[in-house]
């Protein structure tokens, strides 16, 4: 049964959220249920190791390796695993590709689903009520708030991640990058361009 507990357990904890975390952590540690070192390792993983540079490598490879691109579009989970990117909140991946005709944009209206192994922890705006509520109904206005103005004849496809499928947007490759290697290309790939709220950087 759903738990509509009007005397909700969180009300037993201190009101300040930083102290609330501290209280939970101390209690679980005292009960022998968490290893503080494990918490540090989790934080370090997502603060420093797993982030949008992973996704940028996938995009750059797709841009300059047509066979990889084909594998990525066919089975993104397997293709990303080739580069060593897999795991929690990225167990089932799908890549969607932007073209002159179509622009893809990803949201999770029900919570905050996001491809962690490729992009890390989602930015604050991705988890905000405004983005979750509006991305599906008025994606073009939302894009304008990111400074992105699409041509009127470009179709917008919004992907609402309601299941355990995680979406990666492959932004359009900027012009003037012919012959660039993957590292140079990856520097043009922003986090927002892989969510679909931005475009890849144009070379200076």
């Amino acid at each position, binding site marked *: 049964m759903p738990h509509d507990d009007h005397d909700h357990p969180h009300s037993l904890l201190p009101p300040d*959220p930083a102290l609330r975390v501290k209280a939970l952590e101390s209690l679980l540690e005292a009960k022998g*249920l968490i290893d503080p070192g494990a918490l540090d390792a989790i934080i370090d993983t997502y603060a420093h190791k797993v982030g*949008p540079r992973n996704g940028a490598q996938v995009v750059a490879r797709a841009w300059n390796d047509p066979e990889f691109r084909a594998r990525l579009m066919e089975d993104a989970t397997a293709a990303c695993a080739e580069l060593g990117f897999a795991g929690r909140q990225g*167990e089932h991946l*799908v890549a969607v590709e932007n073209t002159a005709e179509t622009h893809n944009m990803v949201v999770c209206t029900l919570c905050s689903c996001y491809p962690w192994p490729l992009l890390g922890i989602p930015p604050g705006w991705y988890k905000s009520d405004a983005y979750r509520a509006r991305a*599906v109904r008025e994606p073009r206005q939302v894009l304008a708030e990111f400074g992105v103005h699409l041509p009127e004849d470009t179709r*917008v496809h919004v992907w609402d991640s309601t*299941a355990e499928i995680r979406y990666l947007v492959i932004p359009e490759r900027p012009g003037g990058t012919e012959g660039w290697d993957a590292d140079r290309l990856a520097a043009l790939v922003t986090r927002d361009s892989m969510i679909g709220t931005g475009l890849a950087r144009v070379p200076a």
Partner: protein
Amino acid sequence: MTRVHDMGGRFGDGPVRPDPEDAPVFAEDWHGRALAVTLAAGALGQWTLDRSRHARECLSPKDYTAFSYYEKWLGGLAALLVEQGVVTRDELAGRAEPAPSPLSGRRLPVAAVPRVLASGGPTGRDGPTPRFAVGDRVRAMRPARNVAVPGGHTRLPAYAAGAVGEVVLLHGCHVFPDTNAHDMGEAPEPLYTVRFDAGELWGAPERAGDTVSCDLWESYLEPVA
């Protein structure tokens, strides 16, 4: 019929405020701590992903709206810990000395963190043959609801309920959240991506021809001739 988290299509939330690309991953130190405590507590294996989502969704609309993102996680975590008997209310309130837990053997050790984060929890399963194929037209059930549990967890967003769309992807069978969130088993069934025309969902779309896709389980769908 819906809960507060099901906000797709809602008006009135104001502008989205983008963060710079190089903003810190955790805006406050306690954000990272909240994420880590939640993951480490989840690793004790006392609840499913679906159950933990439902715990957040069961925050009162007032709390859900007022809480920042990680406060919602903490609210959900506190509820799960008490419901599963992992901690007592008195321990949570600091009114009782913390008692050693019989679950301490399941504690996530630091050495296991890389392996646990890298393996995740795939939800693909063997299951029934899909009823629909790519290109089929389907209607999403209306109202959006957990059929077995009033007010229970479901992944059919209210905005898609009753809408007709086209199957564009098949994902094989996946754990069914509507049962898995409520100790009713994984009951895997076919999962589809269904594409809806924006005009079908919103009446007056921003631009004709734009679409919204949702990942929907077979139980949420019926055929359209």
